[in-house]
């Protein structure tokens, strides 16, 4: 999938963005994603299990995330990682947000 196809998925839903961001570093299992998102956002965003795994399922179906074959053997603690496409989509979303911030700065909405 090329860059153009990655951009077809933008803008990302907030829960998609949070999960992709969380997996940008290491592979994580679901509960670790929940904790990371809560810590990173100071508890303002909580991805509870139903929303989290619903999001993971959608991301898997879109090919942005896959379960890590070298992760835990325990099926209840499967690890997930970004696919190359997932990384590409995340980067594209970040560029989109960056542009928006740049625009906001240029118009004096936020300070530089």
């Amino acid at each position, binding site marked *: 999938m090329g860059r153009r196809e990655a951009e077809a998925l933008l803008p990302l839903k907030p829960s998609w963005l949070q999960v992709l961001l969380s997996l940008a570093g290491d592979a994580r299992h679901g*509960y670790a994603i*929940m904790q990371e998102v809560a810590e990173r956002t100071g508890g303002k965003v909580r991805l509870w299990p139903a929303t989290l*795994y619903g999001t993971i*399922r959608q991301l898997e179906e879109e090919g942005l995330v896959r379960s890590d074959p070298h992760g835990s053997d325990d099926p*209840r*603690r499967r690890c997930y990682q970004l696919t190359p496409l997932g990384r590409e989509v995340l980067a594209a979303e970040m560029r989109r947000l960056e542009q928006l911030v740049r625009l906001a700065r240029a118009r004096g909405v936020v300070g530089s």
Partner: protein
Amino acid sequence: MKVLEALYRLLLLGLERETRRRHGDEMLHAFARALSDAREQGSARAARTAAAMLTDLTRCALADASRSAARFVREVSRSLPAGAGPGRQLSLALRRAQRSPIASVAIVASVALSTGAATGLFAVADSLLLRPLPVHDPDRLVLVAEGQRRNSSWPYPIWKEIERARVFDVAAWDRSSQRGGLRDGLVKVEVLWVSGGYFELLGLRAHLGRLVSEADAGRAAPVAVLSHRFWRSRFGGDTGVLGRSLVLDEAELVVVGVAPEGFGGIEVDRAFDVAVPYDTEPLVRGERSTLGSPYDWGIRIVGRLGEGDSPDAASARLRAVQPRIKAATLRPGGAPEYEAEYLSDPLRAAPVASGVSWLGDRYGPALWVLLGTVGLLVALAATNTASLLAARVLRRRTELGVHSALGATPFRIAAPILLESLLLTGAGVALGQCIAAGCSRYLLSSVEATPHAMGRASPLELRVVLFAVVLLVAVAAFSGLVPALRAARTDPLAALRGSASGERRGRLAGVLVANQLALSLALLIVAGLAIQTFLALAARPLGFDGRGLLVAKLDFEEHPVPDLAARLERLVWRAREAVLSLPEAGSAAGSLVTPLSGMATSAVWFCGDGGATRGTGSTHLNFVTPGWFATYRTRLVAGRDFLPEDAAGGPGVAIVNRALAEALPCDVPLLGAVIHPRDEQLRPGPPLTIVGIVEDAVYRSYRETPPPTVYRPWSQVVDAGFAMTPVSISVRPRPGAAVPLPGRIEAAIRDLAPGLSVEVEPFARRLEHAVRSEHLLAVIASGLALLGALLAVLGTYGVVSHEATGRQREAAIRVSLGASTTSLWLLALRRAVLVLGVGLLAGEILGFALGRAALARIGATLPATPLTYAGTAALLAVATLAAVAIAAGRAVNAQPSRLLRETD
């Protein structure tokens, strides 16, 4: 924890199957870990986390369900024949329903009666127990309560101490009835006395003008706020009411605003008319003011918890400051033991999101039992509908077989049956809404609810409408799915051959009939237990005979009464004489307290011999004139009744009941023993000699175990420091006396003292009131059970009759091959007995479990009652077998030659 996990597991079923299959275990694992981590940070945190995760799962399940529903609708519209729009389908379903009018009417009527009763009961339960108060964020409201009681009330000094302690934001209210209104038309007005911050704490905004605020304290011109209902009914909704003056007893107040619509106060079944700042009370009530009194326990305290606060944490903070709070009401010279007990009774913050309801507290348990019972009836009606629709499907099996042979999908065959079910049950539920309104009105008028409480229980309330919709979906789904699935599985070959798979047909009919019988028997058992509970309670020995008694309550219109101590004792003697002079009065006696009046006077007693303390007991106390025990028919076990010689200033004497004799470990014979009274704070009084022992009798409440009680002669009431009103004259009419005695008693007493008010009440009303909850439960549960039994028997008849008709050809062949009529009867009855046995067994188990749960809910205990279980089963068995015999008889007695000719 396990319960929450089970709930989460259950809710997971609402998610799409694929999500569940791929991630279900992971979600459960994450749920358990998150909950366990949250528990380490306290139970409040754990509760919030659990609630958030359950809400999240519910939201996702609803989103999945709505996606599935959209797919389903797309599938349905694709499967309908071209040109057959919803209108056409509806008209076809209507035509099918018209083809069997009796069955259709039976379905609509049974669904209407059961869902109507269920919705009506739910509307009452919702209005009294469930509906949140119409205020801002009601979940954060708490009442300051004591011990296990929720409806605690407090004297003024405690309110002030709690306000000062600032444990959380608080406001206070009190209630009274006054004469008030515009100067030219005074009526009885329900007044809500509020602290300045009451409305602000509740987060309310005025409908018109402004509400009472802190700034009103000590204002020279006292203000009043009208309730929306009072403003509409008394002032015709006139917006010019602001600034007008409103008379309230002795004061004139300025109307400054109208409260928001729908708000009647925190006490949901007793709405206020006028809200007035509490500081204004002395102006309104003059000398009768109780503001500031440490002895008037009428103030309720409501609090609002801060964000993140919990009732447990707030209760802990209250308990930390409670000794200081309660110390404000200690009387000087009290005994240390009493004080320690009083100070240690724990304060707590009790959640009050749905308000305080006296009716809810009293009738709530019975209401829940009735809702459970009516749930059984709804299930029964749904099963009945399923049976009748299944019978129709079997009748149409040839037609359905043709459809199937022509390539119709199972869904296309089943859809019209689902639609027919929805149409009939929808009509039933719609009709049920009219029954619901009548049902709630009957129930609320039976418990003497105020017009305001009756107005709240409307079937048009959003939650009640939602309840009715959920009922409709549940009943339509259950009653439509069984026959629809049956139709969808029609085997075209078998159907076209005309021989339905008899085995399967019989099995489905058997399951439905057994189900109906089980539900009906469970209903009958619950009703039987309700009747037994009521009868056991009504026949409870009280220790006196209240039937036929009349009680005249004497009080003075003005308080405080001048020279009460000097006038009271004489007044009762004169009143007793006046009543006894009536030819219709058989016996009469005066007393400070009458049984079951809800009032009580208590004291502590020491048993001593020559001043040495031997034992102590807390007892109830009453002052009675001679003849009181004879009037109440309480048996004198030993000694004597009071005599005119037991006069004021004479030696102290007492009559005690057996319970007191058992409670006091006196080692001397009780008759003639000396007991030493103390008041509630253990201050001593003069010694009393026991001159009589009477049978135990209940004192304050119908359900109590007769408490230890001491009776003292009426002549010594003033000396003992109990000069208080009201007092009572109890009268037992002469046998065969004319009925209109109450009016004559009132006339005989009324003029004995200026300003005396006399209210005569038949004692039977108290007895009836005491068992009203159980009576209502027994009456309504019996009605529902009889309706259920009727539905079950008719349903059984319908199914068996249909099945028997289907088997007529088989019976005809058997007869022509030489089978005897007896063998055919045995064949029909064998199947019926099997189904009946399974149904009754399941019903006994269900009835036993539900009956026990119902008894526990209403706090009743009954001994094992095999008669209830066996009797109801026998009743249902006889009725069902009769229905089976009539239906089977039609098949057995059919003419074989005619049948075989017709079917060939």
